[in-house]
Every structure is written in structure tokens, then in C-alpha cells.
């Protein structure tokens, strides 16, 4: 039996494109599960497939001292959803570097639930969105710190760039903390391209579209600096560059 189809009343599906999801729900109803054993490391790079609707739902359990690092580019032309449930035992480390890039009528969202169960866990989520047309880009990120998960260090850095009045960025970092000795930082901002930077680039010979693309590249590309595998880094950079040229 598959899980029931979600409704917008559920917080984590609030901004979803359920019409686009409906026909493909069967294959995504059950999130993939991944267990990283104590002390092990996992790194992955998610590059878009090019399908109109792209959904990735994954639940990751990090054992004591385990590490997971994900680099994600979310840029579906209709609906893209990256959903992560992460639990961290003592000393585990989770890092997410993700971008939503959208234009037209697309909806791209990143929904995370990071649960610190053990002590001294560290999670870091960096999300950048670039949205043109009437695109919607969302980040819903919940960080839970369980009772006893002392010295947790959780960080969320979320920034969105809107290229068009019709575009929308939703950003909802959420903290639920049941321990007293924790550090949880979150910052969120929504902005537009800086006019002075635009003029500087144009005065050097870049036409407006190229100048925009270059500035946006600067905004997004830092996310992939630490991809260990060179070929994978190239792949995600190339895909992001392509998406930015489309949007800019």
C-alpha cells in the first residue's frame, strides 16, 4: 500500500505543485533510505535529469561520527522537490549545499528535516535560489535538537535572488530545540541584482544578459567549491551555468 497522497495542509507540502506530482506519486511515495554507519562518510552530487518533474525524497540516518555531504542542483522546468530527512547520532556531521534555479511557471523546493539526536552533532545547510519569470523557489528547513543533544551546532544560510517581479521565494527556517547548550544560526535574505555591479560589468564590455549571468554565477557557484570529485564538480557547475543562462 502506498502512502496517502499529500495535501497542502501539511506544512512540508505547503508550496508543492501537487498537480504535477499526482501522476508520478507512486514512484516517490516511499522515500529512499540510506544509513551511514558509525565513522563512515558519504558524499553525493545531484545533478538534474532534465525531466519536467523531478522528485527526490531521501531519509538519511547518520551513525555516531558519520558524515554526509550533499551537493544539489534543483532546477526542474515544472516541479522539482528535494526532500531530506536526516538524523544525526553523536558527533555526526551533515552538510547540504543546494540551489533552486527556476524560471517560467516552475516550482522548485527544498524541504529538510534535520534531527540532532546525539551530542555534538553538526549540520550546515546552505541554499541559494535564483528565480525568474513567475517561478516559485522554496526552502523549508526544520532543525530539531532532541533532549540531551547538547553542543549541537546547526547552521542554515538561505539567500534568494529574484530577477522578476512575478517570481516568489519562500524561506522558512524552523528550530525546535529541547536541549540548552546548542548553537543554531540561521540567516535568510531575498534580494535583486546589484545595479552598481551590473554597470561595472557592462562598462567592461558585457552585454546585460551576460553581465546578469556572470553575477548570478558568482552568487551560486561558491556552493560547489568543495565537491571532492573533479568530474562531478564540473558536471554540476556546467548544469548550473546552463540553468542560469536560461533564467538570466
Amino acid at each position, binding site marked *: 500500500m502506498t502512502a496517502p497522497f499529500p495535501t497542502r495542509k501539511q506544512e512540508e507540502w505547503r508550496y508543492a505543485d501537487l498537480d504535477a506530482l499526482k501522476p508520478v506519486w507512486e514512484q516517490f511515495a516511499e522515500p529512499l533510505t540510506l544509513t551511514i554507519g558509525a565513522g563512515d562518510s558519504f558524499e553525493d552530487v545531484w545533478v538534474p535529469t532534465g525531466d519536467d518533474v523531478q522528485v527526490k525524497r531521501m531519509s538519511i540516518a547518520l551513525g555516531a561520527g558519520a558524515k554526509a555531504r550533499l551537493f544539489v542542483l534543483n532546477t526542474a522546468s515544472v516541479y522539482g522537490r528535494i526532500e531530506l530527512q536526516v538524523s544525526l547520532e553523536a558527533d555526526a556531521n551533515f552538510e547540504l549545499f543546494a540551489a533552486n534555479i527556476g524560471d517560467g511557471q516552475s516550482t522548485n523546493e527544498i524541504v529538510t528535516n534535520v534531527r540532532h539526536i546525539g551530542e555534538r552533532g553538526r549540520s550546515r545547510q546552505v541554499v541559494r535560489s535564483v528565480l525568474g519569470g513567475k517561478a516559485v523557489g522554496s526552502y523549508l528547513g526544520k532543525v530539531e535538537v532532541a533532549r540531551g543533544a547538547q553542543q549541537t551546532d546547526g547552521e542554515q544560510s538561505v539567500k534568494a535572488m529574484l530577477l522578476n517581479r512575478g517570481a516568489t521565494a519562500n524561506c522558512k527556517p524552523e528550530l525546535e530545540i529541547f536541549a540548552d547548550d546548542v548553537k543554531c544560526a540561521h540567516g535568510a535574505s531575498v534580494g535583486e541584482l546589484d*545595479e*552598481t*555591479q551590473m*554597470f*561595472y*560589468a*557592462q*562598462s*567592461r*564590455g*558585457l*552585454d*546585460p544578459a*551576460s*553581465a546578469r549571468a*556572470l*553575477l548570478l*554565477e*558568482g*552568487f*551560486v*557557484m*561558491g556552493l560547489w567549491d568543495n565537491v571532492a570529485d573533479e568530474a562531478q564538480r564540473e558536471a554540476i557547475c556546467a548544469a548550473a551555468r546552463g540553468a542560469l543562462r536560461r533564467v538570466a
Partner: protein
Amino acid sequence: MLDIRNLHATVADKPILKGISLSVPAGEVHAIMGPNGSGKSTLGYVLSGRPGYEVTEGSATFDGKDLLALEPHERAAAGLFLGFQYPVEIPGVSSLQFLRESLNSQRRSRGEPELSGGEFIKLAREQAALLGMDVDMLKRPVNVGFSGGEKKRAEMVQMGIMNPKFAILDETDSGLDIDALRAVGAGINRIMRAPDKGVLLITHYQRLLDYVTPDKVHVLNAGRIVRSGGPELAHELEREGYAEAAA
């Protein structure tokens, strides 16, 4: 080469330039001096097409072309370069990528072949070295974390790479130490002193003009050129101040 006639311009509906006429023939360097707020930077921005700087009257032609009809990037491709009074930082974009894309975009629109990665690095290394700058600085994001003086030196490296026909240099000397001033002065002469090139040198001080001798000096005050003269005018201004000299 650059012909400005009766140029009026407003910023945020406020008249700033109030009828500037100025002609810089090929092969000449003209200095523009004038008190703070007199409109020097505004003139530079208007000539390079900054949005928000509106020309309300007059004309500017560059090699016979109507400069004011061109977009900023088309002016760059036509050979115009603005050295910024406050060079702009662009996080996340390396100077090398920024300059390579800019230069190749200019070359494309002029119908010239683009430079390959290797050719560009060679050029960048050469120009950085000539200005006494380590090419590694250009691997960093554009102007990010540069000191005031480093930014000005970097502007001159950019100018060397672009090799423009005409440069408007807005207080490139401000913020430079003595050695940097000498390097920048030599750079301006090397890059821009040629029979087919021209320079508009905006400055407050004689010291840069000791290295780059101007053919003419103009004094801008409240949006108008109130005096013009030879290199000796700059000395006079330095001695007597604007109030006396421009009276």
C-alpha cells in the same frame, strides 16, 4: 577623438552637468580638476552610460560616433574605458573570468577572434607584472578584499588587458602609496600614450600629473568648465586653491 558639446545631465532629476564643452583630440591627455561634488565623476558616468544619469541636452561623439546612443557595453567595445573612483567588488567571480569574458565579448562585437584560455592568461600575467601585481591576485573574486590602493592598481591592470582607445580615469591616483603612484603613472603612459589614443584624467592632485603630463587642464565647478589651460594651470591650482584660481 572625444567631442563633448554643451552637455547637460541630471541625476535623480537634479541638474549636475550644466553645459560642458570639451574636445580631446587623438594623442592628448586632458586633466579635469575641481572641487568635491563639482560633477567630475558624473561626467565619467554620463560618458560611459550609467543608468540613472540622464542627458537632457547636448551631445558627445567618439571618433565621430554618437556616444550617447550606445549602450554601456557597446561603448566599451568601441574602445572606451572608465577607471572607477570606487572600483566595484563582485563576490564569487574571479577577476580572470570576469576580464576574459569581458574582453572576449568586446572582441566578438568588433569582429575580432576571441582569445583562448591560454592566450588570455598570458596577457593577464604580462599586464599584471607590468603594474607590479601578482597574477594570483586576479584569481580572487573581483576586487573582493583588495585594499583601496590594490583596487586602483587592479583597475590599471584591467585597462592594460582591455587596451582601450580612450580612458576616463576617475581619481585613479587617490589611495595610492608613492611606489604605486609611480607604477600607475608609468602604466597610464605605457598603455594610453599613443597618437591614436586619448585620456581624460580626473584628479585632485598635481602628483599624478608629474608622471603623466597633461596637454590641457580643465577646471570643473558646479557642472561647468570654468577655466582651461596648459599643465601650468594644475600647479597654479595646487598653489592657490580652486577659489582663487577659478575666480
